[in-house]
């Protein structure tokens, strides 16, 4: 079996989403760095893997994939049985709940949290820019409304899709880990069930390993 190749960077949020899955299932893979500062993500070689010029992309034999959540589903299906069942595709209602909360992460949580991470960490550290506080403040309000929903949900079930850890929970890790390095981390203190949920799944070995790859960026 040829080795899976993941093209991306170990401290990049979407690459981390896939790394977590690979680590959870114990897959053998090679991480091939793509240099964003030199524009490698827009090179013809990389555009052939990801036509939108983004990371990550994954090659497994003759299959090339992009979009981190789609790649994550593939990895979890391919190695099903080797690691934890994070998709529950053998159960119609459980797999539907995983799909629901994975879409919530993409459509509700991520749009609120990622501008905060970008403005307060990425812009100043990577590009020497000045954070736009109005963008941060607007998105903090949005994030709090999302966390209201999460708090209610996690008061009723241990994890987002049910009483089982799933891809829906995992998908939140990378942006949330960065958020915890911003001055706004204490926002989570007002949501005790959300905070407990976060602390629970960040103790998983796969998470510790991927967090270590974030280097000085955490």
């Amino acid at each position, binding site marked *: 079996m040829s080795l899976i190749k993941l093209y991306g960077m170990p401290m990049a949020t979407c690459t981390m989403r896939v790394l977590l899955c690979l680590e959870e299932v114990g897959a053998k893979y090679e991480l091939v760095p793509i240099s964003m500062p030199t524009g490698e993500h827009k090179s013809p070689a990389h555009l052939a893997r990801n*036509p*939108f010029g983004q990371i990550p992309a994954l090659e497994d034999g003759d299959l090339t994939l*992009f979009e981190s959540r*789609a790649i994550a*589903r593939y990895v979890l299906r*391919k190695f099903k049985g080797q690691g934890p069942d994070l998709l529950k595709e053998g159960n119609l209602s459980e797999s539907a709940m995983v*799909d629901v909360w994975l*879409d919530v992460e993409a459509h509700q949580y991520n749009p609120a949290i990622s501008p905060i991470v970008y403005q307060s960490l990425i812009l100043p550290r990577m590009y020497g820019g000045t954070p736009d506080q109005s963008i941060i403040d607007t998105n903090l309000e949005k994030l709090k409304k999302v966390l209201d*929903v999460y708090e209610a*949900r996690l008061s009723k079930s241990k994890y987002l899709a049910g009483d089982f850890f799933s891809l829906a929970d995992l998908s939140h890790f990378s942006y949330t880990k960065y958020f915890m390095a911003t001055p706004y981390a204490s926002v989570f203190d007002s949501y005790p069930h959300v905070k407990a949920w976060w602390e629970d799944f960040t103790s998983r070995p796969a998470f510790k390993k991927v967090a270590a790859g974030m280097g000085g960026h955490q």
Partner: protein
Amino acid sequence: MGMKVYGLTKTTNVARVLISLEEVGAEYDVVPVDFATGEHKSQAHLIRNPFGQVPAFQDDDVMLFESRAISRYILRKYKSNLLREDDIKEAALVDVWVDVEYGQYNTPASSICYNVIVKPMHGEEVDLEVVDTNLEKLKKVLEVYEARLSQCKYLAGDFISFADLSHVPCTYYLMLTQYKSVFDSYPHVKAWWEAIMTRPSIKKVFDIMSA
């Protein structure tokens, strides 16, 4: 009890679910949610969709929201081949292009539709700068789609899938505007759309949306 979809049939995200229901031939009811009276923020609706949005969906004791998640549930329940879940590679390609639909196509396309269709309905002024910005974004996306659809008949491969059908509701509205001509520059995309439009389920959903 049959399946229930909560929302209005003109709404793109509701229409997405109707497409899956029509594709599998399921029996269902549409239960309207009245935004004008704030029904979407009522306790009864928030139990179905905690973000106060539509659609929401119920099948016996299964309650779901998020139109693409609902669609997957329906397609799986009826063992539709639109998810290609018998083939791990094909299923992955379907997932890729569903995520592209949400992450790349939907934002500029729906922004244009919102500005040129919805805003005038509410007597609001159209922001042409926003329309132009999103038109440029959409063209860049259509360039990628043109290249992809030059290599295979549909987005995930030479088979139609949920990835293609997920584009239908927003594209339906886009094609009602003057910006439909944008597609003329992308012949493979145009042919792809025309092929999708011939499906009986799509024709039926168009009738429902325009009623």
